[in-house]
């Protein structure tokens, strides 16, 4: 049962996350890759800025990994999140899960990204051609 948690200003690498969870004990690996979309509700996105309360975000990501390892039949999980300025197509988050069987891999991966978006203190500001907004801040 292993986990790997990282917050970084460097570009995230899918193969790094996949390698961490890869093992001959597994039959299945599920990866989620978040990418910066070129638009939000029809408005063109120029870039995103991600800010983290890093020490607490790491703790919350560890909680997610621990719970995923406890509740699903998986052998490893890797959660990497990027901060700083990202442009369209770049990767803010990668989650990789390795498991003996595929059902648990999918469930754990989806649990991890769903929970990350609810509890981990990271914020993104979207920059459009004519302004910017903190995502989800207001009704």
């Amino acid at each position, binding site marked *: 049962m292993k986990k790997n948690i990282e917050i970084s200003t460097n570009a995230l690498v899918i193969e790094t996350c996949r390698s961490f969870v890869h093992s001959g004990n597994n039959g299945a690996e599920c990866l989620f890759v978040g990418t910066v979309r070129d638009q939000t509700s029809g408005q063109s996105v120029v870039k995103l800025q991600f800010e983290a*309360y890093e020490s607490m975000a790491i703790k919350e990501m560890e909680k997610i990994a621990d719970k995923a390892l406890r509740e699903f039949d998986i052998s490893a999980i890797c959660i990497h999140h990027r901060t700083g300025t990202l442009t369209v197509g770049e990767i803010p988050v990668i989650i990789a899960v390795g498991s003996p069987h595929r059902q648990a891999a999918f469930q754990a991966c989806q649990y991890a*990204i769903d929970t990350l*978006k609810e509890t981990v203190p990271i914020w993104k500001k979207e920059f459009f051609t004519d302004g910017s907004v903190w995502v989800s*801040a*207001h009704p």
Partner: protein
Amino acid sequence: MKLLAFGITREIIGMSDSSRTLKTSMTVGDLRKELCGEFPKLKELNTLAIAVNETYATDDVEINDADVVALIPPVSGG
């Protein structure tokens, strides 16, 4: 206490890391009320969570002088 503010709360309050004087037996709820009075725009947010020493805290939690308190507006990672 040390007060941290992130995302839009940092912009509303106009700081990222400052110290505030702690009133006697102030709770998380007291702090919330005080800040929302001073910065009414905080009340317009979808949610405003408060963390004490890197853990989400409910309004009844007491804040002590050595605590690090953080304002957590709606998160949007991923």
